[in-house]
């Protein structure tokens, strides 16, 4: 097995960014086909394809669409381009290299679910991707691909870009909806779920960039063709963002089920000279870390990783070699979650801060032996009790790092310095 370039086939062509270049490679032909279909037929095709949300949660897309009310109530299609999960950079590439791919996917999806208005919520730091999208939107409007009576089909769809302002929590679907509504980006209580009451209390579907782009190929080739790649429960291809201590970091599109070790060693070019693999986070920083032995057993699909106690998540594969101190790296993550917690509910707001403070006490040599068990207790009690999953996302790395690399933590607490690097925190960071 190797890379399968389904979505990324023409990403190497600079003109693919433009309408002309996109059309030259078959762009918008699937839209023509879709507009002649029955909307329900498209939903059924997406359901049959087994497409699962590519943003991180992996929820079956067709099923999510099926939760919308079957009436004429106006509904919204929102594209989640907030891409804040550390290690993930695939959506950025997609928006820069192929903005029309996303737009076509959105028009087809909107037609299927009966939505006449959509937004692409892009994180504030992605200035260049937003420029690319805005240019592409203008081209699409000028060509009658957006707006009223698209290609004479009678279907109206308006699409706009909204720029965020720097908050990881706006990647959570209801956090994003809150931000789009002009409130702070704080997630909302569920129930009611967005498909029933979302943006401005109207039915709303929130999908990731990659998910929406994939819809085009499912409609073009049919569900069965899409299923030729991937596994029974994890169908199709996915873009994986490989980063960290590897020779060739980057985005790679592979069929789901691809062995994780192959992605790192073959596509990723393997370890740097003289280094051995130590640990891998397979699905973005919120996924539990895997040891090198576990990596050898892992395939890049939802079931295999879940079976190993981790998750596929956003598909961001972060590789750590034997020169890294796990206590130090966990400190980077706890700082991130404490910084990004929205502050609404108590376990997350106080828990993320507490975890970070304990980690930094340990790193600065003031750790106590009971702190290690305390970290586990706090993380355990942050799980499953909050409005959104950020609390779980903060707790899982702590639990997995401390459990699987406990010896490093104990060493650090006893000796006041890193087992791997030998130096203290102050020495590590001047």
């Amino acid at each position: 097995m190797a890379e399968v370039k389904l979505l990324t086939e023409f990403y190497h062509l600079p003109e693919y960014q433009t309408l002309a270049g996109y059309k030259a490679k078959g762009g918008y032909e699937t839209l023509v086909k879709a507009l002649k279909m029955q909307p329900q037929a498209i939903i059924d095709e997406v359901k049959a394809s087994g497409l699962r949300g590519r943003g991180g949660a992996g929820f079956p897309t067709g099923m999510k669409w099926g939760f919308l009310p079957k009436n004429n109530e106006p509904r919204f299609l929102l594209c989640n381009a907030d891409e804040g999960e550390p290690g993930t950079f695939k959506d950025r590439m997609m928006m820069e290299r192929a903005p029309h791919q996303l737009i076509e996917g959105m028009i087809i999806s909107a037609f299927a679910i009966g939505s006449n208005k959509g937004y692409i919520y892009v994180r504030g730091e992605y200035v260049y991707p937003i420029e690319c999208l805005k240019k592409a939107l203008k081209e699409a409007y000028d060509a009658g691909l957006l707006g009223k009576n698209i290609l004479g089909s009678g279907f109206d769809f308006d699409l706009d870009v909204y720029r965020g302002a720097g908050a990881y929590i706006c990647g959570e679907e209801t956090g994003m909806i809150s931000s789009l509504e002009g409130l702070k980006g704080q997630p909302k209580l569920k129930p009611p779920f967005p498909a029933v009451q979302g943006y401005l209390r109207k039915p709303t579907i929130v999908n990731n960039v990659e998910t929406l782009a994939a819809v085009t190929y499912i409609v073009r080739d049919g569900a069965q063709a899409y299923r030729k790649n991937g596994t029974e429960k994890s169908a199709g291809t996915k873009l994986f963002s490989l980063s960290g201590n590897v020779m060739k970091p980057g985005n790679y599109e592979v069929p789901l089920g691809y062995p994780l070790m192959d992605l790192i060693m073959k596509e990723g070019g393997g370890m740097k000279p003289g280094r051995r693999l130590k640990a891998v986070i397979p699905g973005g920083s919120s996924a539990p870390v895997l040891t090198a032995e576990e990596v050898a057993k892992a395939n890049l699909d939802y079931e295999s990783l879940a079976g190993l106690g981790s998750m596929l998540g956003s598909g961001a594969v972060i590789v750590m070699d034997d020169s890294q101190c796990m206590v130090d790296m966990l400190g980077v993550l706890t700082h991130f979650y404490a910084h990004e917690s929205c502050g609404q509910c108590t376990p997350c707001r106080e828990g993320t801060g507490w975890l970070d403070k304990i980690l930094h006490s340990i790193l600065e040599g003031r750790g106590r032996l009971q702190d290690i068990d305390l970290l586990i207790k706090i993380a355990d009690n942050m799980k499953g009790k909050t409005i959104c999953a950020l609390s779980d996302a903060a707790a899982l790395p702590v639990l997995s790092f401390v459990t699987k690399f406990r010896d490093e933590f104990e060493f650090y607490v006893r000796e006041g310095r890193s087992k791997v690097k030998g130096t203290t925190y102050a020495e590590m960071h001047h």
Partner: protein
Amino acid sequence: MPKCTINGKEVEVKEGTTIIKAMVDAGERIAHYCWHDGLSVAGVCRLCMVEIEGNPRVQIACNTTITEGMKINNTSEKVKEAVKWGLDFHLINHPLDCPICDQAGECGLQDQYMEYGKYDPEMAEPKQKKKKVVDLGPTVVLDSERCILCSRCVRFTEEVSKTNELGIFNRGDRSEIGTHDGMPLDNKYSLNTVDICPVGALTSKDFRFRQRVWYLKDAETVCNGCATGCNVKVYYNKEGFFRVKPVYNENVNGYWMCDEGRDIYKFVNRETRLLKAQVRSNSGWSEMPAGAAAKHAHELLKTTSGDSLALVLTAQYTVEEFDAIVSTFVNEFKTKKIYFWINNKETFDNFDGILLRGDKNPNTKGLLKVLEKHGITATWNDLSQGLASGAIKTVVVAGPENQAVFPDFHERVKELSKAQNLIWLQAGKNEALMSLTGNVWLIPMKTFVEKDGTFINHAGLEQKFKKVTTVVSEALTLTEAALLMSGKNLAIPTAQPFLPLNQRPDQVELEARKKNEFVFRRGSL
């Protein structure tokens, strides 16, 4: 009407009721901070955990609607663990301010801690530091460190007072309640935020540091600040009254009251009261007990003809008192010259849409009803003419209890002092009255907390209230004054002349005190 089981008890509820409302109504204990029935649901404190059969995870009760056959419990070990840790997360950055915090004794965190507390604190890191003693405006002080970010106050300013002063700024554990850039929390309902704050983050400037709540008794009564007639609870002890809080009434005031009503206790305390009657004659002022002054006034009144006698009433007394004095004047003194002193004609009909009304008297409708019953149709002009011409020689005035809302007080006193004989019945003292000349009787009256009675509010709703306690024992009610002025004697209620201390209705019971003292309740050590 779905039926469900809560902690083993079967309960029937209205369609759409949340679990927490059903539990609170059924008298079940459930920990909660951010939920309030008068505000929207926030679901942020994560303490109201319940276990629902069929659901592996604990759920919050404030956002879950009851469906038919739901089996709910919050007594299992799983729920107790969840609540214990939920409380612990609230406490890790909370400052240890109990010794100086006003909320002690009625604090949500203290109460929960005694039920579920972890007596072994595991937080060994430095706590988040935030601003303390922030002057939020004319009525409220903020302490950001104590704030548990339940967002009740923010939702209040958004949904109830609709003034949007408060917000929660910053993310994560740097979050802080506040107003923008020192702008004040300045609306007419601001002190409700102090009531709903479960901890001592928002405190009332008026009440701050004045009294520990376990030394206060409380009793329900009706506010006498305006014609809305909000139901309130007054807090007092031997030293006097200290504060006023609203009591829920579905039809009158919901959960809230206005800031003006908070001050009504000031007119009741001894410092502002007329303690003894003052009688002025040619030889100057002399002091005497209230009853004696009323009898003294009777000597004058029994020889006064009905044509030269007038009665002026303010709508601040109870319906029973109005009935007593009006029938005395109509039947005994044979005069129908009874006048309604309206204090603010121009703003009388104002209503701000929430609770405040322009009619600053609690019993206008009551007075009008009594006047109608006795066929009184006189207008103030008649009185003015009568005084100017000298036809009216004796005036009896039932003056306002809440003098602050009578902007024309001094004017009226001047006008009424034209009469030869002025008998002024009032609860509070006022120098304008002490500077009168002629024959004057100033007789102290009892305030609304010292008597049983009925007020009729703007909508015609009759609200009965009971006596809370006695502040000035010598003062008279209007009924008693009417009796004495007509020459009768006061009847001493013989039903219960001497009651042992623990049976007197205005003495607080030991059981009620227990709920304010922690010696009677501990968690497990």
